[in-house]
């Protein structure tokens, strides 16, 4: 093999390589797609869980929507306040104090409090129970206790207690709203973490019937309405509803409620609830649904 053929081989291969490299380099410049650099920067700060809690298809969809002005900077429920601040910094806008929101089950009708209509032996899913007969509990509005919310939670923040009620771990809850979507009775609500007073009942039945159904139900007696000094709680359609615009979270309504259907969270009670929840976690496996 003479030197010339080696040179021809090397030259033609090198030439081809150079030709394609140059072609690709030119094409890269010519065919550059202008992508807003802010999209990439937002993608870097958001958690990337692709949970869909923001309502957009995945985190990339959310970042795109923020840059296009279709979503707000604090639209990522998982990232919370610091991510919202970072996105706002990238976009150069101010955010209006998006407080962290956590989920809460608006029902206290556990195994002990509720009345029964029969035995439910179907699939252990709230949606399945709703489809057949509404489960074994008599209350049409109450928690079915079969744990669809706990199964849907991507962050393992919801546990079903021994009393078959969901207990939300506020530290783990990111407010993504998956449980809100999945609950067939719309009992999971997202509330700002600073809310201290809640009506933990959704029963719209008239008082007489509501008492029969559950010992912790709102019986529409109106005592809370009379007690409230701020005109913030009203009985609407047989159910007490708090107007959080006016509510000062004093908790007076909770003190007069005959069925303790209104919850008032004080520091002491939180500690007690956590201890109870911890105890229940171990008990839950032994409990029958």
């Amino acid at each position, binding site marked *: 093999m003479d030197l010339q053929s080696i040179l021809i081989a090397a030259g*033609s*291969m090198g030439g*081809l390589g150079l030709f394609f490299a140059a*072609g690709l380099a030119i*094409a890269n410049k010519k*065919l550059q*797609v202008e992508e807003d650099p802010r999209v990439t920067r937002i993608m870097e700060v958001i958690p990337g869980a692709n949970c869909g809690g923001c309502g957009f298809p995945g985190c990339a969809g959310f970042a795109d929507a923020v840059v296009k002005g279709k979503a707000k900077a604090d639209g990522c429920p998982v990232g919370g306040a610091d991510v919202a601040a970072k996105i706002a910094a990238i976009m150069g806008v101010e955010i209006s104090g998006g407080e962290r929101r956590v989920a809460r089950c608006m029902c206290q009708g556990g195994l002990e409090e509720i009345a029964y209509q029969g035995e439910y032996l179907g699939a252990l899913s709230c949606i399945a129970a709703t489809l057949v007969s509404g489960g074994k509990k008599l209350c049409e509005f109450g928690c079915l206790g079969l744990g669809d919310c706990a199964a849907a939670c991507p962050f393992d923040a919801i546990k079903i207690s021994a009393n078959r009620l969901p207990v939300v771990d506020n530290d783990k809850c990111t407010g993504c709203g998956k449980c809100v979507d999945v609950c067939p009775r719309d009992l999971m609500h997202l509330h700002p973490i600073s809310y201290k007073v809640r009506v933990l009942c959704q029963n719209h039945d008239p008082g007489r019937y509501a008492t029969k159904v559950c010992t912790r139900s709102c019986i529409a007696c109106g005592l809370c309405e009379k007690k409230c000094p701020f005109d913030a709680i009203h009985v609407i359609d047989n159910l007490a509803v708090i107007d959080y615009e006016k509510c000062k979270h004093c908790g007076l309504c909770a003190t007069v409620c005959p069925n303790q259907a209104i919850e008032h969270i004080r520091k002491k009670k939180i500690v007690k609830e956590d201890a109870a929840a911890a105890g229940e976690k171990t008990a839950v496996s032994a409990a029958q649904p």
Partner: protein
Amino acid sequence: MNLLIIFISAALINNFVLSQFLGICPFVGVSKKIDSAFSMGIAVTFVMVIAAMVTWLIYHLILVPFRLEILEYVAFILVIASLVQLVEMFIRKVSKPLYDALGIFLPLITTNCAILGLALNAVLNDYNFTETLFYAIGAGLGFTLALVIMAGIREELELVDVPHSFRGAAITMVIAGSLALAFMGFAGLI
């Protein structure tokens, strides 16, 4: 007539996937859903046609005159890899929806042995330019056909109670084997 025979032979009788066992990785990997299998098949067909034309030109205008046929492997791999990159950039610029649909598959095609196999086979069979073109279209459509059939079967399989030990890769291999056997029936077509 000759062109038709080349076309049918590439698509059915010598089907790239099921008779020559080229491009098995996308055949197994991208055949879970008919939609994506079809997209992948069309993307491969597209790249095959372009790659076949360019490799034919390079072989006959550069490698043959310099008597460098021995270097066809290196040259073809170079061509195919850069071509796929170029096509990817071009599609991204021209049609964003098409890019989103094919985007994941295009880089996969870069290392798809079916394309290199096509370029090498075309040289081996001593096809002229038009014949190479028909060979490429036939091979690409044959590839698409195999992928779509496979995806269709696998979609149906989702609803079937497969014995535990056969689930996943095992049943896929069994199907691929049965399909290859079925395609042997085309041998008497011409």
